[in-house]
């Protein structure tokens, strides 16, 4: 070694590189297992359902943060992407169970909701679980494809036009899904129908029902933490800086060599992937999905989380997702006024603190922790 690196942090030394990349994955797995085996039995079914909703909302809020927060675009299509992902995944698991296992109940390990491992060689993970994971990824990918199509017009559109297009997209998705053909339930009929044809039988206006029950705290928290890791890493990478630069000043970003079009579309694609996964997870928990219920009202819920948490703050979005999921339960006695209060909060927030509670900063970068975080030098040491 002839050259002495002034800062160890800069070197891609393998011994630092590997744990750094594996640690978040381990943390995700650990937290997910903890939620599944410790929290769920201890907290009971009501709190577990709440924890599940929190995780799903975290995924949604963080995914929307990538577009509305980092990139400064305004998407109102979250519910549409959820619907796309949810229906796609539901079609895979529902028809897949018939095709692969000949019954609507695929084998599942103890990590899944209906998991009954007795007498099976691998009690943790069954092939049904793998199908479920594959379905979630497929749902995410289909949603990402939809995100690409919606993101494309953003080359020519700014801010509010884009918002309208995403809203319109959500409505188109709703109408198309609601006019799909009825769900097939006859095993022989399903076996005799080719896959592309099966994908048009999505339940129509009744929604897709009888979806296998897979989603547990394990799967949602695993997905939530992985979403957080991706979002955080992205924000700290050159990618994230490109996103942020577009948000700050599009013209200046272009002048600095950021291909704004490409990055806007990328933000859309990545964000809608996660929204699609969230939709898939919900579909396999509720066991049904109905595009009619995934209107723009649902998108607004997520937008409120992102705006209140801070446009661009991942931890802010997480916090807002948690608080806004629990709050309605605590405020049940004033259920009618819940949305009135939210709306007022939104307006007052925009007037008093337009950047949201945390702005682009993360929770640990404000308040008493601020100095320590600033003093530690290179950012992004650990994971979440």
């Amino acid at each position, binding site marked *: 070694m002839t050259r002495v690196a002034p800062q160890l942090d800069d070197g891609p030394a393998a011994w630092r590189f590997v744990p750094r990349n594996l640690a978040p994955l381990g943390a995700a797995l650990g937290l997910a297992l903890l939620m599944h085996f410790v929290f769920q039995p201890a907290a009971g079914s009501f709190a577990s359902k709440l924890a599940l909703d929190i995780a799903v909302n975290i995924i949604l809020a963080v995914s929307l943060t990538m577009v509305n927060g980092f990139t400064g675009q305004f998407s109102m299509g979250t519910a549409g992407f959820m619907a796309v992902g949810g229906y796609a995944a539901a079609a895979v698991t529902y028809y897949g169970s018939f095709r692969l296992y000949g019954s609507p109940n695929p084998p599942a390990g103890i990590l899944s909701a209906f998991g009954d491992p007795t007498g099976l060689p691998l009690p943790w993970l069954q092939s049904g679980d793998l199908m479920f994971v594959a379905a979630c990824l497929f749902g995410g990918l289909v949603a990402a494809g939809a995100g690409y199509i919606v993101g494309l017009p953003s080359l020519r559109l700014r801010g509010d036009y884009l918002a309208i297009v995403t809203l319109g997209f959500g409505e188109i998705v709703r109408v198309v899904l609601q006019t799909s053909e009825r769900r097939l339930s006859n095993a022989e009929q399903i076996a005799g129908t080719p896959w592309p044809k099966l994908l048009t039988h999505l339940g129509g206006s009744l929604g897709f029902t009888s979806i296998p029950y897979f989603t547990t705290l394990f799967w949602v928290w695993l997905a939530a933490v992985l979403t957080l890791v991706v979002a955080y890493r992205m924000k700290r990478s050159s990618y994230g800086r490109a996103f942020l630069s577009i948000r700050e000043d599009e013209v200046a970003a272009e002048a600095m060599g950021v291909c704004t079009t490409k990055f806007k579309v990328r933000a859309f694609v990545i964000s809608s992937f996660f929204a699609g996964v969230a939709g898939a997870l919900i579909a396999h928990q509720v066991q049904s999905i109905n595009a009619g219920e995934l209107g*723009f009202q649902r998108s607004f819920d997520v937008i409120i989380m992102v705006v209140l948490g801070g446009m661009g703050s991942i931890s802010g979005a997480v916090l807002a997702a948690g608080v806004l999921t629990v709050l309605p339960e605590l405020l049940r006695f004033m259920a009618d006024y819940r949305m009135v209060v939210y709306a007022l909060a939104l*307006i007052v927030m925009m007037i008093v603190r*337009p950047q949201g509670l945390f702005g682009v900063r993360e929770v640990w970068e404000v308040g008493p922790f601020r100095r320590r975080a600033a003093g530690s030098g290179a950012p992004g040491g650990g994971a979440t």
Partner: protein
Amino acid sequence: MNAALQTFFETLINGLAVGSLYALVALGYTMVYGILKFINFAHSDIVVLGAWIAFVLARSLGYATPDAAAPWYAGLLILLVAMTACGAIGYAVERLAYKPLRGAPRLNVLITAIGVSLFLQNTGQLSFLFGASPQRMPSLLPDTPLLTVFGARVSLVDVVGAGTAVLLMVGLEYLIFHTKLGRAMRAVSYNTSVASLMGVNVNAVISFTFVVGSALAAAAGFLYSMKYVGIKQPADAGWVMLGLKAFVAAVVGGIGNIRGAMIGGVMIGLLEFFGAAYVSTQYRDVYVFALLILVLLFRPAGLFGRATVEKV
């Protein structure tokens, strides 16, 4: 042959009747956009409020019972009161929510507008106001067919509705292009800072724009509920769709362009009804948004708008 002609004319009449209402709503969007450069998401909720205020008024005047025949001036009275009330609400919304954000980034104003929209929807739904259950608008006009064109009935409601809409639009046209106030509005929309240097009271003009836009929206809401008597709850998706289609009309006509909004509204109405009648009813919302996306892709400034280049 005759049946085909009848379908055609029925569709045409419905399309024109609803399209003229879209045009009324679109005018509010386009005027606000022309001046403040943001989509007033709360505009569709003003439409809803107009319909509900009209309903409450009609009920309290005792026209809700089926046998109580409303006098001819009842509709006009209700129309004027609803327009005044919504004008006041529009003024208040502008003053309280949008004025503090003058000069703020557009995204913030947009979010505020969504907040105002959610606020109006959910406040209107509270039980002491309008409640959360759909209601039926009493018919203030006798349901008499005026004439039949190839078997298609032209009913009084359609004629009065479209006629009122056209009258209001002619009035607006006069206001904007032939009065001093209208010249001030056009000046502010063209260049706000220069207009204020020329002695135009910009804030007053903006407030006035909101009042006019909201009054037109209220009229549209009332007329719409006369045609489709089932008024839905304030937070119903159907209302938002009405507002969105009107917005699409404004964009198609070239946002900021008054005449474009009128033509755009009628176009959207015709597209929706002809699409529903001749292609498929289920996709009636899809046509409108598909048209929006096409227009934005190929003529982002709208059919009648002029493209502007953003200067740095």
